[in-house]
């Protein structure tokens, strides 16, 4: 496995999206970690903060391994990356099974958080570059399919894990058995990706449309030195922060907004609202990123950030007056949140080319880690302070919504500042470099 697996003649590019999906649908399980929290707290006598630790460490490791492993993924190829993701993600569950079985919680933190988290990061970026090379005519749709899978992973894992715990029991032995089955099942499921993924032959024209290897060639190291990279970093960070602002407190938020009305929202209806948000998040990933292939990456981000700010304003002004309006606005914001994740790899490809787009994407994901801290911090802290000040209902969220609107405006401005990357940052193609070398006097 020293060089990337090159597609044989006749290999269909439509085999690459399911390969990518098999990895992303698996690692998307991370967002269903909350299913394990209550049984772990009871079985191992943990508090809420302790039981959240494996997930938090996994997300930190996702960001770090995507940022620092991106160049290696580009060099070694997608099969190597998917194999690493498979081994790490599955081993994480197996180590956690040992930890639950022996009641050693640190093993669960180490397994799921540290080892599994590396699998998340490498797995997340593993198919991006390859998909863009196979679908140069529709990079938004191609990466949208894969990144939609990350959203879909939680949809599968959440009911599946819950049913498994119901069957095996919620004591430490039952949790250990559930972790074991997860590890083995995900290893089998991800194997499809490892076996199927292929890189297109260099210079091979796509089945239709432009060549996969045309356009700018900017290295990952060069990209982080451009203002375009940092503008996109701000764009992604602001867009994700705004989405998390809703996602983080969705259930209590809808309950608070209509607590004083004639028809308060029940706990099961609030759970239904959260599920609907997940659907909007997933639909936004494939829908908006596919649309970006037609309307352009910059325009679609104008929609996410500009229309997102206006939608937040609508909720802040009229959200408590109408339940359908509140739900509709929240769904729109969550579709923009998902769309941002899925469109950004294609935006990077437009600016920096497909040369090291996976590694550049990995570095950009640090914006996600930052937003993951920023979003919940803003919404939770402000809501707590407003509550302490004696406010209630929708007024708990007015200030944080105002901040979200401000952040989205900052993101909008950053998007407007994005210009094509100057040619001095481009890396010459191997043939051009060889030609230039030949032309040099001896």
């Amino acid at each position: 496995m020293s060089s990337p697996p090159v597609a044989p003649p006749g290999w269909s590019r439509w085999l690459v999206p399911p390969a990518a999906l098999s990895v992303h649908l698996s690692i998307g399980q991370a967002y269903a970690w909350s299913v394990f929290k209550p049984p772990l707290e009871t079985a191992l006598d943990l508090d809420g903060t302790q039981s959240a630790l494996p997930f938090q460490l996994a997300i930190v490791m996702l960001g770090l391994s995507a940022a620092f492993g991106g160049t290696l993924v580009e060099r070694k190829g997608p099969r190597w990356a998917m194999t690493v993701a498979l081994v790490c993600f599955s081993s994480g569950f197996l180590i956690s099974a040992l930890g639950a079985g022996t009641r050693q919680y640190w093993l669960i933190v180490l397994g799921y958080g540290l080892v599994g988290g590396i699998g998340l990061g490498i797995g997340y970026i593993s198919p991006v570059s390859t998909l863009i090379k196979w679908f140069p005519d529709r990079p938004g749709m191609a990466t949208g399919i894969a990144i939609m899978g990350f959203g879909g992973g939680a949809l599968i894992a959440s009911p599946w894990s819950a049913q498994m715990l119901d069957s095996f029991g919620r004591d430490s032995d039952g949790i250990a058995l559930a972790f074991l089955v997860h590890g083995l099942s995900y290893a089998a499921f991800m194997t499809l990706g490892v076996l199927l993924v292929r890189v297109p032959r260099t210079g091979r024209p796509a089945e239709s449309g432009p060549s996969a290897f045309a356009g700018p060639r900017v290295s990952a190291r060069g990209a982080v030195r451009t203002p375009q990279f940092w503008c996109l970093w701000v764009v992604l960070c602001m867009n994700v922060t705004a989405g998390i602002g809703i996602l983080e407190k969705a259930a209590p938020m809808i309950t608070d907004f209509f607590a004083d009305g004639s028809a308060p929202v029940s706990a099961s209806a609030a759970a239904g609202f959260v599920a609907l948000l997940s659907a909007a998040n997933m639909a936004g990933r494939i829908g908006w990123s596919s649309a970006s292939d037609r309307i352009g990456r910059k325009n679609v981000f104008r929609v996410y950030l500009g229309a997102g700010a206006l939608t937040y304003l609508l909720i802040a002004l009229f959200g408590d007056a109408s339940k359908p309006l509140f739900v509709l606005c929240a769904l729109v914001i969550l579709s923009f949140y998902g769309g941002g994740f899925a469109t950004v790899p294609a935006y990077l490809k437009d600016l920096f080319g497909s040369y090291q787009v996976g590694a550049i994407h990995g570095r950009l994901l640090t914006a996600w880690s930052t937003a993951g801290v920023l979003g919940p911090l803003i919404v939770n802290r402000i809501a707590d302070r407003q509550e302490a000040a004696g406010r209630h209902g929708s007024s708990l969220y007015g200030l944080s919504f105002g901040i979200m609107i401000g952040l989205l405006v900052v993101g909008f401005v950053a998007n407007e500042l994005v210009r094509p990357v100057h040619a001095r940052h481009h890396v010459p193609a191997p043939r051009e470099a060889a030609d230039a070398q030949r032309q040099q006097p001896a």
Partner: protein
Amino acid sequence: MPSDSSPPSRRGLIALAWLWVAAPLAYGVYELVRKATQLFTG
């Protein structure tokens, strides 16, 4: 009819690969829809 040198058809493999990922995703979407309807009935 393909000649000896023509690349093999991958239709069966493509269908199998998509089914592999679509089946669990369909289960997840079904469970999601079941839960989401609680917003209107709960």
